[in-house]
């Protein structure tokens, strides 16, 4: 069992966890806890550690991703088929837990796994909670039910407390994977070092990346992606011959603005590396267009007004409509006083649902010229819903007084209203 030492190189910074799991696994024929629950944040190496450990220790095991098995049947069949290694002409059919236990015992018998511990790894185990109520308890007690030497490993990002429900479940052995520290992250990311560059040089670079991004993002995956994306830019001066590897100050000055820009698009993955390069070029010339175009949407004329009306209806209290849209409006003393009493901004509370009629009433009072209430106007509302600029909250039937919500931000509506020369701020209660 000294094989796992190999892991230390490929899976650094998880020595303690590996040791723990190995201790739980023991020798091949030894009994293990019926179930092990492993949890920790995204990208803390849970699946990776378990998968590689099981691979190395040459024990019978099945990996299941619970996202993929959207029904319990697929879950059972997946486990059975993979355990028995059947070719896909004769597949197991299994609909319920009872059949599953029986077939499982059968396979153990056939394959002569009696003196091995069989491992079932259920990745993304939180999905099991949404399936039939008996699945989770049954998997927790699988040793008891099958009378076999079997161990179920649950891997999840959620703590065990959130799994408890109903009766009949027994407690698994709980193991936590803690977050990587900054040093850990650096150590792991240094593994990605391209072959033609020095490891120290690369870890120097990762250090720079971490210093910029560590505050906003600790996800190892994202950090690795960012490092990869920006490394080419980092070494550009070296390839051009403008700097040497040791010229770290110069390199830093070169890369820093790029990293700062990348900071705005963490997690977005909107661009591939090639496009990112292109974008960087453009951004240096026109500063804000790239960010603007992200959310820019070209809309038909009346759609714009409908959207503005929807925004006003969502963020203004009904009572204030009279004030904004009455032909001759005069703000009374009382109204002015009332305004002061208002405590929370409507923009903090989020959009409120409004009925269709209110939307149309506001629409007709803000739109220029006479607009007939044609079918096209109504179908536009529906198409705004379909592209998720509006949301329908109640009344699926058009006749039954549907209610909508405006789902767009203030910035968006301001840019829309600017294109039709409409001052939306003067029609909003919060900005009076």
């Amino acid at each position, binding site marked *: 069992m000294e094989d796992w030492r190999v892991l230390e190189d490929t899976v650094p910074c998880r020595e303690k966890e590996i040791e723990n799991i190995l201790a739980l696994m023991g020798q091949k024929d030894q009994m293990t806890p019926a179930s092990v629950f492993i949890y920790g944040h*995204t990208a803390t190496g849970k699946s990776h550690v378990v998968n590689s450990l099981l691979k190395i220790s040459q024990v019978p095991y099945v990996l299941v*991703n619970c*996202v*993929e*098995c*959207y*029904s319990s*049947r*697929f879950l059972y*069949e*997946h486990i059975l088929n993979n355990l028995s290694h059947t070719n*896909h002409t004769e*597949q197991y059919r299994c609909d319920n837990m009872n059949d599953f236990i029986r077939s499982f015992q059968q396979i153990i018998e056939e394959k002569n796994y009696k003196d091995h511990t069989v491992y079932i790894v259920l990745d993304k185990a939180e999905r099991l909670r949404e399936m039939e109520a008996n699945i989770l308890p049954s998997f927790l007690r699988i040793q008891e039910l099958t009378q076999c030497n079997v161990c179920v490993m649950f891997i999840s990002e959620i703590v065990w407390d959130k799994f408890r429900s109903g009766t009949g479940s027994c407690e698994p052995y709980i193991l936590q994977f803690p977050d990587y520290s900054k040093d850990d992250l650096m150590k792991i990311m240094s593994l*990605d070092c*391209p072959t033609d560059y020095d490891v120290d040089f690369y870890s120097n670079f990762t250090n720079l990346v971490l210093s910029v991004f560590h505050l906003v993002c600790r*996800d190892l*995956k*994202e950090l*690795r*992606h960012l490092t*990869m994306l920006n490394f080419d830019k980092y070494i550009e001066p070296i390839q051009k011959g403008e700097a040497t590897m040791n010229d770290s100050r110069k390199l830093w000055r070169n890369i820093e603005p790029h990293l700062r820009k990348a900071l705005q698009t963490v*997690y*977005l*993955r*909107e*661009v*591939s*590396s*090639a*496009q990112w390069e292109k974008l960087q070029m453009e951004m240096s010339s026109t500063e804000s267009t790239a960010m603007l*175009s*992200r*959310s*820019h*949407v*070209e*809309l*038909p*004329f*009346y*759609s714009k007004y409908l959207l503005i009306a929807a925004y006003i209806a969502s963020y203004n209290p009904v009572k204030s409509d009279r004030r904004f849209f009455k032909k001759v409006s005069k703000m009374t003393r009382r109204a002015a006083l009332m305004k002061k009493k208002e405590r929370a901004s409507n923009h903090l509370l989020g959009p409120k649902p409004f009925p269709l*009629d209110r939307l149309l*009433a506001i629409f007709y009072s803000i739109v220029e010229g006479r607009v*007939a*209430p*044609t*079918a*096209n*106007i109504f*179908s*536009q509302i529906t*198409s705004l819903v*379909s*592209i*998720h*600029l509006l949301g329908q909250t109640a009344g699926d039937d*058009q*006749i*039954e*007084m549907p209610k909508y919500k405006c789902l767009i931000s203030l910035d968006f509506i301001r840019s829309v209203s600017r294109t039709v020369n409409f001052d939306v701020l003067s029609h909003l209660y919060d900005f009076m």
Partner: protein
Amino acid sequence: MNTAESVSKGCFAYKGKKKVAKPIDYFPVKDNTGKQRHEVCQEMWENVDTEIQILQSNLNSKIFEELLSFVESSHKGVGRKTLVKEIPTAALITGVNTPDHAVMFNNMVSLMKERVTPHIATLRSKDCPALKNILSKTICQLTQRPDLGLDDEDDELIQTVLKKNSPCTMSTLVNWYQDMYSSGKSSPKKRRSRSGSVDDIDYKPTLVIVLEDMESFSPNVLQDFITICSNYIEELPIVLVFGIATSVSAVHRLLSNCVSSLLCMEKFQAPPSSDYLTQVINQILFTSTHPFRLGPKVFHLLLDLFLYHDFSVINFVKGLQFCMLDHYYSNPLAHLCCPESDISSTVKKLHEADLEKIRLLTSFSKYVSFTTNHNGFKLSAFVIHKLFWRRCVDSCSSEEKVTFKDNKSMKTKVTELLQGLHDYHKSFFPLMNLLHVLVCRLPRHPLGKQLRELYSICIECSLTDSDGYKEAFDLLRMLSKEEMINLLTQGIKHITEYNLPHEINTIPSQIETYLQRLTLLNAETEHVPEEEPEIETENLIIPKKTDLHNLRKTLQKMEKQKKRLTPYEKLRNETLDFLHLLFQKYLKCPTSLPLYELLYYNSVSIIKHHINAAPRSAIQRALSTPHQYLQCKCCEGDPNSILPTMPDVCIVYKLHLECGQLINLYDWLQAFMTVVTSEDEENDAKSKKPDQILQARFIRAVSELQFLGFIKPTKRKTDHVARLTWGGC
């Protein structure tokens, strides 16, 4: 008791022949030209349709080209050194004109099938409410034979077959893929489908999954689907294509960080649909090849629908088709709206009655009265007409009236006039384009930025009289020499693209000469203009005593005279005058031409009813003025009054208009009964105790109103209903 009788009574259903409506059946029987019109219409529409389709395939070619190369190269990239493999994803930003997207995606998919990979799955959100559906849809479409056509029934079939054999999971797909393209051997069929020369032997086509309307997918389903795809990205070369109507930020609204980080997106922006529309209009409406034309109001309406409502070119084309159909259907002479080559043959076939109809056309009778009354005398007032119709006018002799009465000469006249219309269009569009080039960059755009704006001015009224035209020419008179030269060169370039008819084919060379003179002017030395003594004398004219107003006037006049024109200015004015004459001659309003009704379709109200319908106002009108629909005298009267003779639902509707948000049913019933029984006022006691029949009528009317969407039951107050519309009568 004779029971045999009742037994013999029965209802027997015979399966009759299915009646398919023929287009001919729609024309009235006595309408003898219906068939002919229908044929011409179909022919015309086919021409237009093919052109639009060609346009469509050309339009997106650039973006498709990029997209295809992205899909092709996405899984070949050896240089990429990412450790965690991301799913290559193309975010295709399509714009909000959702009706057009189906065609666009169809084009894209067929292009991709041809060039990149036979395995493409297209998913629509309405088919994929759950993960199960999205997976089974994907797998069904990917595993089907590439050459097998797939319609809905087949789809079902494959689905059931698959279900029997193996579960619809990704592992099934992996097995299938490995069977098909296991390393080393590839079937000859696959070899054929690969594009060009691919150096590696184990060619593996990518699996493309197109999500047409990404925004409408349920986020949970989509996230799970992407997670599953990324689990298998090592085994399956999957490429995702997202069709996004709004902007890329939609992706991040739908997907969580951990899912979106599985993607490697590249953004593709489809050209805006207004570009497409411009192309369609320029190609279909602004050429002389298609005789059918939209009148100014209809053109406006269709454009407004596009710009104000949906941005959908498909809808615009559908509108155009409708206009065409209606033109040929409603106008009994529409078969004369045919290609130029068929004019004489069609005119030859005209009947007596048809000729009579032509004589009744307003434009024709106007023309007749003009040619007969003003023959040679008052022509000066109609000099513009004369310029164009010189040929016709010249041929008009004193026995004009006889000509228009005689059928044979009438036919030749009609042919001549129609030919004239076609000729008019042939010179109209090149010159309109020329004018557009000259004016489109002017400040404040007096004649519009787009060609279509200029066109709508041209066909609506006389262009040269319009304010915009005058303003544009005033601005043109202020151009600098470089600008002028630039504009003229561009204008020549545009106008020579047309196949100019021989009448105006000298225009480019004429402009060319002006251009040469302009350029030569540079070399010419500035003439020192001789001092004219006139100015001095002018000075003396100022009277000794004058008021301020007059003084200013004289001074201004003097100022004008004082300003001498430089040679360039003179030449510029000369050029512009030449152009102005051209425009005046050729860009006339089509409504001033005889027989224009045959080619121009302008019944805007019909189109409005059909394309831009207003269902709610129609219902409201029907309920408030029922006599218009029922054609009865008894309900006639002031629209606000409630008459007992009206249908129950109308009475109930009118009564409910007087109520607020909530309506008390009992009060409503009382009011209803008062109205209904107002004629026979027998006794008041009766109204206290509701008549059962009246009550039933009332309830029925109320439920009809509920069905129409004016009220709905509410729980806020017992015995009340809520109003769903606002506003009183």
